[in-house]
């Protein structure tokens, strides 16, 4: 934990790099009137073109951060900018290039999905009215909602609502998308489609900032992650950076674990131990092939040999703690 905190602090604050950042914040803090500090001196650095997974336990301040970025709530202190322009001053020119899904979709219940999109589009002064029907159809198509476009929103299922919310974020070509738990309530196909969609948008050069609890999904699509815990960023950086920091372990299943442990120790692997009849050690920079070779040479009968990369979930838990209760 302390290593991670040090990492978060030591993030380089190179001014020339800020043009390359889609989202940047400095000491961004939100203290609600209740006295609760929901976001605490946050230093967000989201590179342009990144697919950034914004992680954190319930109540860690993800939605509050997204609301601040969108100008819905005002920070208590700190500065932030998106697409290179300081906010909230430049909201009028920046927000049209930003699509957003905040804390679930919200539409007028008695209007159809298409009519709801048309209403939002009409409210956008930068949108061309002439192209609206085509853009609306494309957005609906992209989220697989064409068949239900004429239904009243109140008759939509949870997943259809979520899809319509994503369609609203895609009404215009965007440079940046802020998606707060976009796969909430989606069926497995829907989740997969959203994952593909995010992947595809990322490839088109759109920066995607996505908060999620589905770590397996994040691991598959994201290039960067930021992990929040009680309002603070405990780690952020690229996924390869994260992986490089993690300790990869080897696990040897054998009839003679003690001998295997000794071999691992001799090769210079860290923390060699025997647990439940298996030899464990931290891999470090040694080739796994050499370990197997050494084990065989030493006459240890190897039944199983596993190189264990920690899953994002394990990393997440190690960064944010095991506790199940939300921190009030």
């Amino acid at each position, binding site marked *: 934990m302390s290593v991670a905190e040090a990492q978060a602090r030591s993030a380089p604050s190179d001014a020339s790099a800020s043009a390359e950042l889609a989202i940047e914040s400095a000491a961004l803090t939100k203290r609600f009137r209740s006295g609760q500090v929901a976001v605490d001196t946050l230093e967000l650095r989201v590179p342009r073109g990144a697919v950034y997974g914004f992680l954190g336990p319930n109540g860690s301040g993800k939605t509050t951060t997204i609301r601040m970025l969108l100008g819905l709530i005002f920070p208590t202190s700190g500065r932030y900018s998106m697409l290179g322009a300081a906010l909230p001053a430049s909201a009028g020119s920046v927000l049209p290039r930003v699509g957003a899904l905040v804390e679930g979709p919200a539409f007028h219940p008695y209007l159809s999905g298409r009519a709801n999109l048309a209403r939002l589009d009409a409210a*956008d002064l930068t949108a061309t009215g002439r192209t609206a029907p085509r853009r609306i159809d494309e957005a609906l198509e992209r989220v697989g909602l064409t068949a239900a476009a004429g239904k009243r929103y109140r008759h939509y299922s949870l997943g259809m609502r979520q899809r319509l919310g994503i369609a609203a974020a895609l009404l215009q070509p965007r440079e940046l998308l802020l998606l707060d738990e976009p796969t909430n309530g989606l069926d497995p196909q829907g989740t997969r489609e959203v994952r593909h969609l995010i992947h595809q948008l990322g490839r088109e050069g759109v920066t995607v900032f996505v908060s999620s609890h589905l770590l397996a999904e994040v691991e598959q699509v994201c290039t960067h992650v930021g992990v929040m815990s009680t309002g603070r960023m405990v780690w952020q950086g690229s996924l390869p950076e994260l992986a490089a920091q993690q300790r990869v372990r080897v696990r040897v299943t054998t009839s003679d674990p003690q001998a295997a442990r000794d071999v691992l120790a001799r090769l210079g692997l860290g923390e060699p131990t025997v647990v439940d009849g298996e030899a464990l050690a931290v891999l470090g920079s040694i080739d796994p092939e050499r370990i197997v070779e050494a084990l065989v040479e030493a006459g240890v009968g190897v039944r199983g040999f596993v190189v264990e990369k920690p899953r994002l979930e394990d990393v997440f838990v190690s960064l944010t703690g095991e506790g199940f209760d939300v921190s009030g």
Partner: protein
Amino acid sequence: MIFRRRRNQAILGVLAAIPILIAISVKVTDHGSRRGNDNAGALFGSIADNGVFVAFAALFVVLTVFLPMAISVVAGDSVSGEANIGTLRYLLTVPVSRPRLLAVKYTGILSWCLVTPLTVGVVGVLAGLALFPSGSVVLLSGTQVPYVDGLGRLLLTILYAALMMAAVGAIGLFVSTLTEVPIAAMATTLALSITSAVLDAIPQLGGIHPWLFSHYWLRFADLLRDPLQFDGVEKGVLVTLGYVLVFLTLGWARLGGKDISS
């Protein structure tokens, strides 16, 4: 948006029923025309002589309760309704700037302020034409003017009523920025209208009467005299514009710095 909502269509339906109800009641119970001493009596008494008074009498009836209620519902719902279902956050991220949002909402409220008395007036004229004579109009001052002139005065009356309601609309818009519960905003706005009317009815508070927004609502009767008496109407217009200005400013100040956490 406003006119597509079923609830608002129902309100318009109720408003349209009032002049019809008045016309039928007068037709059924009338035993020759009588003119009362007060404005209300005079308006109702004149119906049998000329159907256009159905419209005036109906406006008189709805101005104190029904119209403020209709306006309270729409104005109170304007911002709080969007906050309640969460669409407010998506409008703001489109982005619609907060002042523009207020301007659009108030424009909608103003159109509602106009359409509601217009509905009452038009239905009133039609009901009057159907059931009563339509010759020259005898004004409250006893002067006779042509029917068309009477219609002109009706139009003035409707515009006056719309303007009076614009104050209720501005108050409702402000109240609507205070809460995420539409029904609370509607009730508060209506309660403020009623409070204003109650204060207006207490003689000991005569000093503040000229500053109450409901004080001038029924002054439209002055438009039914010859020559046209504009004093009361003029004051009503000025006080109303004052209210509109103050409450729009309050609404702007309130919404401008508000955290939208719905």
